[in-house]
């Protein structure tokens, strides 16, 4: 039995496996399958300043070893989250990362300020959300916009702040450096790539939103590459994700530089995925005589 515990920004995690934002809701649906306390942590569904109804359906499409989604940040708003969901989550004996988003830096800061007054453990700021002030391009695709939103949120909270990066950029290391410079305590990556599928019969895009977020095993090599690049570019810890389906995948992302690993699409496919991945990671460590998961972080030896 290897030591699976990791520590990120001073917060201890039992193990490095965390359901990713958006696939786990607020955890309630999974309690019928297992106790949430077995998880390293939980990243909650992205929450905005006010309630959002999300995009028109269809919101999901399958791709070779992947999926597209266009949920559009459907959520009840930060006040309802704090009132109805957070107390239950905080009683679950696992690390809660409240994932937040907004259309303006002010909205993000306001959401963060409200969370700052709660006992939530960490805030994960998703900067892939379209920035209404800058013509709808995501905050996460320009260093200026990214810096600006992180600066605003940083002022609003003293909680450990994880900034979640978009992979749809020319240089993710530039964005990572910009958000670290503004006081991000950690970065998480990757959010979804942008993809599209067309229904040949109807000649309509499968998603009503035409394009959507591309996740799952297919994107794993992009995740490994970006985690490696970012871990070598910034001094803050990296939480890795993107296509992790097995304990070995988690180990690979950790070697690339991740201190912990989030799991998204794997859970959409199988509610037990995080538990299986924790077990597989432990088994892999044991059979390779590695005492602690934390030793893996950044241990790749580049050529």
């Amino acid at each position, binding site marked *: 039995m290897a030591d699976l515990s990791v520590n990120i920004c001073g917060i201890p995690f039992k193990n490095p496996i965390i359901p990713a934002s958006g*696939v786990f809701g607020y955890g309630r649906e999974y309690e019928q399958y297992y106790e949430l306390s077995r998880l390293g942590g939980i990243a909650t569904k992205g929450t905005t300043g006010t309630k959002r109804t999300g995009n028109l*359906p269809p919101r*999901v*499409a*399958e791709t070779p070893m992947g*999926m597209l989604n266009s949920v559009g940040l459907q959520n009840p708003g930060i006040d309802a989250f704090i009132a109805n969901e957070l107390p239950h989550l905080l009683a679950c004996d696992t690390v809660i990362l409240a994932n937040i988003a907004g259309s303006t830096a002010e909205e993000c800061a306001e959401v963060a300020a409200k969370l700052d007054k709660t006992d939530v453990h960490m805030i994960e700021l998703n900067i892939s959300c379209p920035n209404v002030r800058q013509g709808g391009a995501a905050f996460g695709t320009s260093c200026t916009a990214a810096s600006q939103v992180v600066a605003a949120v940083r002022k609003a909270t003293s909680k450990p702040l994880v900034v979640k990066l978009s992979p749809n950029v020319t240089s993710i290391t530039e964005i990572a450096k910009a958000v670290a410079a503004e006081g991000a305590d950690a970065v998480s990556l990757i959010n979804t790539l942008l993809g599209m599928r067309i229904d040949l019969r109807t000649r309509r895009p499968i998603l009503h939103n035409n394009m959507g977020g591309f996740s799952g095993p297919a994107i794993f090599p992009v995740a490994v590459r970006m985690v490696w690049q970012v871990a070598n570019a910034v001094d803050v810890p990296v939480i890795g994700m993107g296509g992790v389906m097995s304990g070995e995948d988690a180990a690979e992302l950790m070697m690339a530089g991740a201190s912990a690993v989030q799991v998204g699409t794997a859970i959409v496919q*199988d509610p037990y995925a995080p538990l299986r991945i924790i077990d597989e990671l432990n088994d892999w460590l044991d059979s390779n005589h590695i005492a602690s998961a934390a030793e893996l972080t950044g241990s790749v030896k580049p050529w």
Partner: protein
Amino acid sequence: MKQDKYTEKLTYSVRSMEQLTAAAWSMVIECPDVAAKAQPGQFVNLLPDGNFTLRRPISICGIDREQGTLRIVFEVRGKGTAALSQLRAGDTVNMLAPLGHGFTLPAKETRAILIGGGIGTPPMLPLAQYFGANAVVISGFRNQDAVILQADFAAAGAKTILCTDDGSAGRFGLVTLPLEEEIAAQKPGLICACGPLPMLRATAAIAKAEEIPCQVSLEERMGCGIGACLVCACRTVDPDGTEQYRHVCKNGPVFNAEEVQW
């Protein structure tokens, strides 16, 4: 299929597999734990073998608590259902079930009209079995070659009315005509329907006009199937008129027709 202790929890045996038409298959799955809880209108979510990311939702067509089995009937549409149609008795299948919110059933004595269109007919069978002779099952199909489950409906004791789009079997035309006739003959206490959206919309409109309670089973592309990923959105209206998205996998697949934003 990977065999770890978690995957095992979702692994079930295929008891039997029968081809009903060129495209439709009937599968009986051994799953005592699921059969014990399953309710009419709920669905199962199957992960086909191969490189599939998403599960495939299929309605429950039969619940046999004694045998500990479920029956599903599905049509081959794309790669996933094609892979499922390859399964044979003794094979295993990865299934998350039972899922969703099924039909809310009044007393068995209620006169119920059950409407199924095409591959929307299977979820009507457990209802026909429940209401027995008090049920009228109106099924519509493209043509004779697509007709399924008529003997099962008859065996349940229900009055069965068959329609086809081209008149190649049963009555010619849409299911709404016999529906109106049956309502005129004797107003039912409940209408249940599953099938293509235009059929559901027309059925809901008739039920509303006649002030008959109506429950419809909807379809939407799904991810998790348990209400967490929010991809299976369906526009609904609250009694106070506010629109919102609810989720076919958790709030449905069965909704009261008035809840749905048609």
